[in-house]
């Protein structure tokens, strides 16, 4: 996998680092955004951004392309929706439940798939995802085409009313920021170091005594769990869990978002997610033109901006001591 993992020995300038300032600015923008932009759109972007970031852990840092991540995203959404609607669980519990189920599913899928590489890994994850899609299609509680509709957003910790859009937005933003911080930590941890080593040269890592499959499996579980979390949150935002989120198109979409944004970067998946969501949003009434425009953008990106959106800016940022 072509990845632009930037491994600068943390630029050590005194005071708050440029990285912190940069992230701070982004955060302020994110806090102010719902006053300027339709919040549900922002939330949708955040959900997909989290999904793409979680996926990127596998593609960008382990070097494995999963083509079945929608199963975590979509199934977690179903579980959260069902828990919130039928069992009346509070949103945070419902989301955690979805996340853990996705991680559990990730453990099983990962266990089966992790020994394979490259296209075989992609295909076996795809195949398993298709099986899970089939289950979703046939299981009664998912309500087929209709999906689970009218999911209550509920009260966060039994207190904060999430049916208020602004409350919901800040809740989603908080989940997103925490999850991204967590991912950043995973990548920049002793564990992350070993992951990078494994991606670079697996036999060598084995010869140094690392049980590489365990590392990959843990990474896969984390990735699956966070993908699930993204799906869970999305099901509350839209009050709906549907087949579209378990379909292979969703798996494909997250690959696109990540590649368009920049593989193996921290901000790339977010940028890619917003690009794709924006295209879909702006051209919703254009009918088949949407697909034409989308296709055109992919083609242009592949031919001209291969490192992704963030990849284009990365050198500029790097010069200023910021990791993209």
């Amino acid at each position, binding site marked *: 996998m072509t990845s632009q993992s930037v491994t600068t020995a943390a630029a050590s300038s005194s005071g708050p680092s440029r990285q912190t300032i940069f992230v701070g600015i982004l955060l302020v923008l994110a806090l102010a955004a719902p006053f300027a932009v339709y919040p549900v759109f922002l939330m949708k972007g955040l959900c997909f951004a989290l999904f793409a970031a979680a996926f990127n852990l596998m593609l960008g840092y382990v070097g494995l392309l999963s083509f079945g991540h929608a199963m975590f995203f979509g199934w977690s959404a179903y579980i959260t929706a069902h828990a919130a609607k039928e069992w009346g669980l509070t949103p945070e519990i419902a989301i955690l439940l979805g996340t853990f189920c996705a991680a559990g599913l990730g453990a099983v899928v990962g266990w089966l798939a992790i020994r394979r590489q490259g296209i075989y890994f992609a295909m076996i994850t795809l195949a398993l995802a298709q099986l899970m899609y089939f289950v979703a299609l046939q299981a009664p509680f998912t309500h087929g085409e209709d999906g689970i509709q009218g999911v209550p957003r509920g009260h966060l910790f039994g207190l904060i009313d999430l049916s208020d859009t602004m409350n919901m937005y800040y809740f989603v933003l908080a989940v997103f920021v925490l999850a991204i911080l967590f991912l950043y*930590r995973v990548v920049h*941890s*002793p564990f992350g170091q070993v992951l990078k080593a494994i991606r670079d040269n697996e036999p060598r890592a084995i*010869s*140094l005594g690392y*049980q590489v499959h365990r590392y990959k499996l*843990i990474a896969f579980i984390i990735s699956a769990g966070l993908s699930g979390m993204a799906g869970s949150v999305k099901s509350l935002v839209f009050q709906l869990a549907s087949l579209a989120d378990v379909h292979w198109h969703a798996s494909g979409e997250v690959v696109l978002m990540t590649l368009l944004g920049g593989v193996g970067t921290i901000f790339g998946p977010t940028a890619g997610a917003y690009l794709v969501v924006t295209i879909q949003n702006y051209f919703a009434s254009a009918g088949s033109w949407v697909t034409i425009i989308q296709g055109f953008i992919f083609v242009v990106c592949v031919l001209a901006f291969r490192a992704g959106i963030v990849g284009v800016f990365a050198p500029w940022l790097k010069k200023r001591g910021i990791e993209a």
Partner: protein
Amino acid sequence: MGDDFIVETKNLTKEFKGFVAVSDVNLKVRRHTIHALIGPNGAGKTTCFNLITKFLPLSRGTITLNGRDITNTAPADIARLGMVRSFQISAVFGHLTALENVRVALQRKLGTSFQFWKSDKSLAELNDRAEELLVDVGVQEYRDIPAGELSYGRKRALEIATTLALDPEMLLLDEPMAGMGTEDVARTAELIKRVSKDRTILMVEHNLSVVADLSDTITVLKLGKVLAEGPYSEISQNPEVIEAYMGHGVGSHA
């Protein structure tokens, strides 16, 4: 002690689809010696390494390390038991810097490698030791360069430093000098000699002067079988070895 065997193989055999690459090799590597494995191309030297470190499953035979049967042990676990190998084709972590390469090896002993919640700054305590190792192999100038950008010879040196970082009691080196310039060869030979003090080394090498210089015992393989074994003085006189490997002396080593 000093006189016992750290690694022993019995009837070590590897068959690839109807072709025997290694056949009934009984190898005994004496503790705290340098043992060389030589032989013509395709004799099965690298395959032996792959078998001993379990990078390939055996067809038959047993392997013991410190008297313990490791025939069915996973490769990563073998490394954990203190037997570490290098590769014939240089094996570094291309996107990590030279320092990080060495540190990845040091890091294992820290026991925090599964801790994805901990900052990687916690690894800084290993930097001093890592730098010492870089100095040992003479690549300290390149500590912050991604290993993929180093020249071939330096990659080999870095690889040795990484291997040594594990502080293994048993080292398997596959053609450590291949691709190195003359001056690097000398330094590396020196280093191998130095680290062999309290370690055991099994090494494959085509550079006969290095082999002659370093090794206590030599095993010659041919067509997967042991052809001869003994010190250099003995081996180099063996007509079969001359016939199969050394040839009649013209231009064999520069």
